[in-house]
């Protein structure tokens, strides 16, 4: 109560800190990224040539697209473990589509992949709504189901670069003003998702749902509908990532994207999206994805044994946890100080 009549400057300072804390989270990853790139470039200047930058961006694209979708789901206090399988399915579907219709225009393949992914998202969303069971369990089930469908469809076939139109493969490595086309997709997705989450009512409602589901329900937010939509978006982005995967790697079998789910969750966590919803941004998640990929690319250049790579990813996650914890403690202290009765 006292705070109301208290020095308003103190209040302002407190909240400014809170703001700073939120920005600090993303800045922290960005700083880690810059540091990593700088050190690696010092050791080996070739790391940051035009080709090097292109490789970094291309390498992060697929994980970043998945991370954007995943963070939308995680913000609502859910999780989508099926993204790796959806990516695999969509990648194989893209290849099959080109195999069956060699002259297919690229946008059609893109749309088909996105639609297939969205359909998988619809399955996830519908099951979660119908079974009222944690998304973790449902998407664990569909992880296996989608992958099984992929296996059954592929029956051991492999689709190769020669089966796909050269124009499509060229998209996988082409650049526009030095920026890879695939990365442009990721940037478009990121900016669109980030803008939507910030400036549209339904976007803000996703945060509200993750922050407190009962309060969201009382506020008249259609919780079920929004969560459903989040899963459809996540599926659609995984579908898009599948098409990008096909364009980038050219060789496709039923194993594409196997095990990606945990990498994506790791990227989201490193990017500062709270796993229990309500806070974090897609920008952070995308930065997390870039950081994780860059680590994998930088370690070989730095001459660090590749065996350490996994450990580095793990250390990064634990460091992110530590940072989050420290920031939370600091923020709680500043907020407590200001609203105290004393």
């Amino acid at each position, binding site marked *: 109560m006292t705070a109301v009549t*208290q020095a308003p400057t103190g209040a302002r300072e407190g909240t400014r800190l809170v703001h700073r804390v939120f920005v600090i989270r993303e800045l922290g990853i960005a700083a880690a990224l810059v540091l990593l790139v700088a050190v690696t470039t010092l050791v080996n200047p070739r790391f940051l040539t035009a080709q090097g930058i292109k490789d970094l961006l291309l390498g992060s694209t697929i994980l970043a697209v998945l991370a954007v979708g995943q963070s939308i789901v995680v913000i609502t206090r859910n999780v989508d473990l099926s993204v790796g399988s959806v990516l695999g399915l969509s990648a194989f579907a893209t290849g099959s589509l080109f195999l069956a219709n060699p002259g297919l225009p690229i946008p059609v393949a893109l749309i088909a992949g996105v639609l297939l992914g969205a359909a998988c998202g619809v399955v996830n969303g519908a099951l979660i709504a119908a079974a009222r069971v944690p998304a973790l369990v449902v998407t664990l089930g569909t992880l296996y189901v989608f992958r099984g469908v992929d296996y059954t469809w592929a029956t051991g076939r492999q689709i190769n670069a020669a089966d796909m139109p050269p124009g499509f493969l060229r998209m996988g490595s082409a650049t526009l003003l030095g920026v890879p086309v695939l990365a442009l997709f990721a940037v478009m997705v990121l900016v669109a998702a980030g803008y939507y989450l910030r400036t549209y009512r339904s976007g803000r409602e996703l945060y509200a749902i993750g922050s407190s589901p009962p309060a969201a329900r009382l506020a008249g937010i259609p919780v079920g509908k929004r969560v459903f939509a989040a899963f459809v978006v996540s599926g659609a982005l995984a579908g898009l990532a599948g098409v990008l995967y096909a364009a980038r790697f050219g060789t496709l079998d039923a194993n594409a994207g196997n095990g990606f789910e945990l990498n994506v969750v790791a990227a989201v966590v490193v990017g500062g999206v709270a796993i229990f919803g309500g806070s974090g941004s897609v920008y952070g998640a995308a930065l997390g994805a870039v950081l994780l990929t860059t680590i994998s690319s930088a370690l070989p250049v730095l001459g660090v044994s590749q065996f350490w790579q996994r450990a580095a990813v793990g250390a990064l996650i634990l460091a992110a946890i530590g940072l989050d914890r420290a920031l939370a403690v600091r923020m*709680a202290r500043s907020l407590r100080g200001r609203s105290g009765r004393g």
Partner: protein
Amino acid sequence: MSESPPILSLRDVSKSFGAVQALSGVRLDLYAGEAHGLVGENGAGKSTLVKILAGAHPADTGTLTVDGKELAFSGPADAQAAGIAVIYQEPTLFPDLSVAENIFMSHQPLRSMRRIDANAMRAATSELFARLGVGLDPDRPARGLSIADQQLVEIAKALAFDARVLIMDEPTAALSGVEVERLFSVVGSLRESGAAVLFISHRFDEIFTLCSRITVMRDGRWVSTDPAAELTVEELVRRMVGREVSSLYPKTAAAVGESRLEVRGLTRHGVFEDVSFAVRGGEIVALAGLVGAGRSEVARAVFGVDRPDAGEVIVDGSTLPPGDTAAAIAAGLALVPEDRRQQGLVMELSVERNATLTRRWSLSRLGLLFGGAERAAARMWSERLQVKTARLTDPVSTLSGGNQQKVVLAKWLSTEPGVLIVDEPTRGIDVGTKAEVHRLLSELAGQGVAVLMISSELPEVLGMADRVLVMHEGRLVADIPRTQADEESVMLAATGQGGGA
């Protein structure tokens, strides 16, 4: 007023939760420009009525008419669309979002292309806060707000709606006098602009200041609706209670013995300060106060759930280590928490397992529980408390609310405590069980147990306590013996306007 048709009208509304019939055949009319008071005892069904008006609960039967059109709300969004804004009894904020966003969630001001206009939202929030005299920064997150600030944000949230019907469920419970005055002037201007206000409070002075008509509810039923001018406080209380109060409180005098619980200078910064009191064996001491006064927090700190910043707790002469619940239990303390479903019981475990969950020492050897001893202890206590259950192996979630309450009691009584702290012991249980619980408390005191009872029900406090301690804004402000305790003296102390200490 009654010439024009009501904006909103309820007829024959009933609602039950499992065994509890929260509402039956309730009616209510709200007219444009009126402030309508709704009073009733705890558990009379006021909040349930609010939730039905808000679309948060569907009514079992009955009709709801807005502007002459019969409506069926399928969710809160429908009620909002019909122009109904609600301040719930418990704050419903989003801790991660900013205060401004909390206020405007789902109806943020928009600019081109349906985008949120953040600047307009911030400005509107500042303006609302200015009207209410609140000094909060619109950009700070809701996390960490005090109960009072949360309540103010809730009020701002409802005002932001420009609603035609504004429902306020105990909005003033945590507010200070200045803030209440501000709120009343805002409500007054709303009324002048033609809105209807439904106002729920346990403070009669507020009801009479603000409201032109008053509806009384009792045990989920509509009792009466009359112009405020035709009513007195005594008449209201008679209608609310509607039964012989004395039979509900079978307090027997017990021999008061040694001091068993002593609390000295207990402090948790920002929550309560320098709380000192003592409870003697055989004594029932009530801890009264308004919602948010800090009573539950004191109980939790005494019990070691929360670690106090300063002060000590002495049980039977020995000082407890701070923040150690197991040590408190071992020393003979027992706490029946206020939120039983969340904190008192493990809903999936059976009655017997719940009942003996805290009985760690005598039933186990080397940590091994002997099924037989456990079952016997559970049966003994269930029989003494008359827990109605088919089997002791049933999960607690299958019991009615009152029986759950008894299981919580059994759980703690089976530890044979020397000091029993009960927080809102009869919240949400029906009249018959209420009397049973009271009889039991009185019986325990008779056996020499020191009982500390936290209660928001004034009749219960007055009917059961040997001594009434009153808290106001985190401080102990009065210690009133049974003979001098009455409604007025306790309420005055609780609202910080008088009292001794």
